[in-house]
């Protein structure tokens, strides 16, 4: 019988939540790697039992863990991330130059076809790839070598490469996003990269429409339509219909266009979800109401989804990698909060309930739909 496996990364360990296709009763396993920050864990589309996890700590640095049995057991693999060549400098918060320095892995993106190939987005921002199941890692240096790296700067969470989207129709095309540099695309498998930020407007940089410097929080696509991208920028929800060559705003009637998380319905490419957050200095929902907003029109027209979500005195945040969908016939939508709740909706967002309420602050949520 089909089911779902929800992979939850938190400030103090990883948790794996499983259910059958009804998504009513959940088994909660964990914490794995208790006490460590798990920024992200994700399964291979080519082998759902192959999982990768980013495990890090301010004391002991970065580990990468790999599982071959769906997260029941894990083994450490390679943790050596060394920039290619002379790292150079990026901008610090005040615009002064700062040397590139490895801090942690924010996001792991397994290949769509090969369980042993996985990409890692790191802080300070760079893209690495392993083709041996995570044992060794090599930078794709063309990204930092684009020439604009000296103008990238950190967002509040650090200068992180947090989004990696592999084009299902074109193995040579990859999209990535960096806070605060913007979005980039390669069309040659990662050798060369171009910034794709035309149409973005950001008031925190001297030239609001500059080629780079934009604080992109997250980007998502539907696999059937990889040239259509949706972006939650620091402020503004944006859409591109030409693989990032140009963007236009689709914030429409949202109560706030600041936020982090964004995802696309598994079966309806124009149905998208965001969680509006009040502002960049108040990282909680407007009016103390936790509301997911859904657009069925690819943006601009949004409806609040509230059933089962707290509608008073709620002051949690939903971070950029903490929303995901399953691909069961009735699409499930999931998100985790900094208050430790993981909410699930088995009916595309109409009704919500908490799978679990009291985890450490949730950093990431990924979902696997199991046969």
């Amino acid at each position, binding site marked *: 019988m089909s089911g779902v496996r929800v992979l939850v990364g938190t400030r103090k360990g990883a948790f794996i939540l499983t259910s059958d296709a009804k998504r009513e009763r959940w088994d909660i396993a964990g914490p794995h790697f208790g*006490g460590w920050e798990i920024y992200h864990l994700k399964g291979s589309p080519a082998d759902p039992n192959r999982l990768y996890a980013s495990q890090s700590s301010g*004391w*002991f640095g970065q580990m990468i863990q790999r599982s071959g049995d769906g997260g029941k057991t894990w083994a450490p693999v390679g*943790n050596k991330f060394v920039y290619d060549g002379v790292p150079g400098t990026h901008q610090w918060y005040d615009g002064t130059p700062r040397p590139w320095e490895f801090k942690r892995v924010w996001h792991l993106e397994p290949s769509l076809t090969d369980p042993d190939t996985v990409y890692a987005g790191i802080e300070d921002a760079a893209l690495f790839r392993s083709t041996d199941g995570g044992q060794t890692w090599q930078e794709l240096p063309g990204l930092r070598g684009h020439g604009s790296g000296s103008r990238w700067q950190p967002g509040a969470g650090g200068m992180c490469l947090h989004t990696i989207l592999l084009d299902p129709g074109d193995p040579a095309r990859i999209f990535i996003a960096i806070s605060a540099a913007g979005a980039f695309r390669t069309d040659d498998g990662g050798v060369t990269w171009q910034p794709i930020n035309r149409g973005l407007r950001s008031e925190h940089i001297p030239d609001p429409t500059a080629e780079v410097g934009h604080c992109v929080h997250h980007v998502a696509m539907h696999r059937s339509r990889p040239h259509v991208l949706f972006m939650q920028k620091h402020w503004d929800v944006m859409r591109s219909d030409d693989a990032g060559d140009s963007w236009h705003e689709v914030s429409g009637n949202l109560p706030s266009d600041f936020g982090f998380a964004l995802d696309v319905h598994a079966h309806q490419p124009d149905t998208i979800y965001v969680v509006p957050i009040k502002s960049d200095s108040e990282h909680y929902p407007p009016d103390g109401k936790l509301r997911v907003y859904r657009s069925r029109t690819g943006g601009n027209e949004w409806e609040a989804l509230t059933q089962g979500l707290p509608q008073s005195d709620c002051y949690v945040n939903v971070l950029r990698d903490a929303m995901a969908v399953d691909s069961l016939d009735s699409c499930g939508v999931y998100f985790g909060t900094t208050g430790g709740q993981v909410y699930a909706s088995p009916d595309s967002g109409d009704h919500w309930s908490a799978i679990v309420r009291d985890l450490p602050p949730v950093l990431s949520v990924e979902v696997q739909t199991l046969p």
Partner: protein
Amino acid sequence: MIRLILPAHLRTLAGVGGEVEIEVAGEATLRSVLDALEARYPMLRGTIRDHVTAQRRPFVRFFACGEDLSHQLPDAPLPDAVASGAEPLLLVGAIAGG
């Protein structure tokens, strides 16, 4: 034989409980002891010292015989009591909240 006491998270990572005992060829120094430790437990590489510079990670400290050896040069000899196995070398995570 050198006795080492690792912080709990590194014991879990290495799959060991209690003290670790390792043999060091030549003089017992921070470098030789950590080299031997990492050779025996490769999963600890990068968790105590930086992969590239081999510098101690900022929130890791080395104590022995009631002394802080964190700032000792990597090739300076460790106290005789550590070299003889009479006293353990403690690898400690700095008190830094959590």
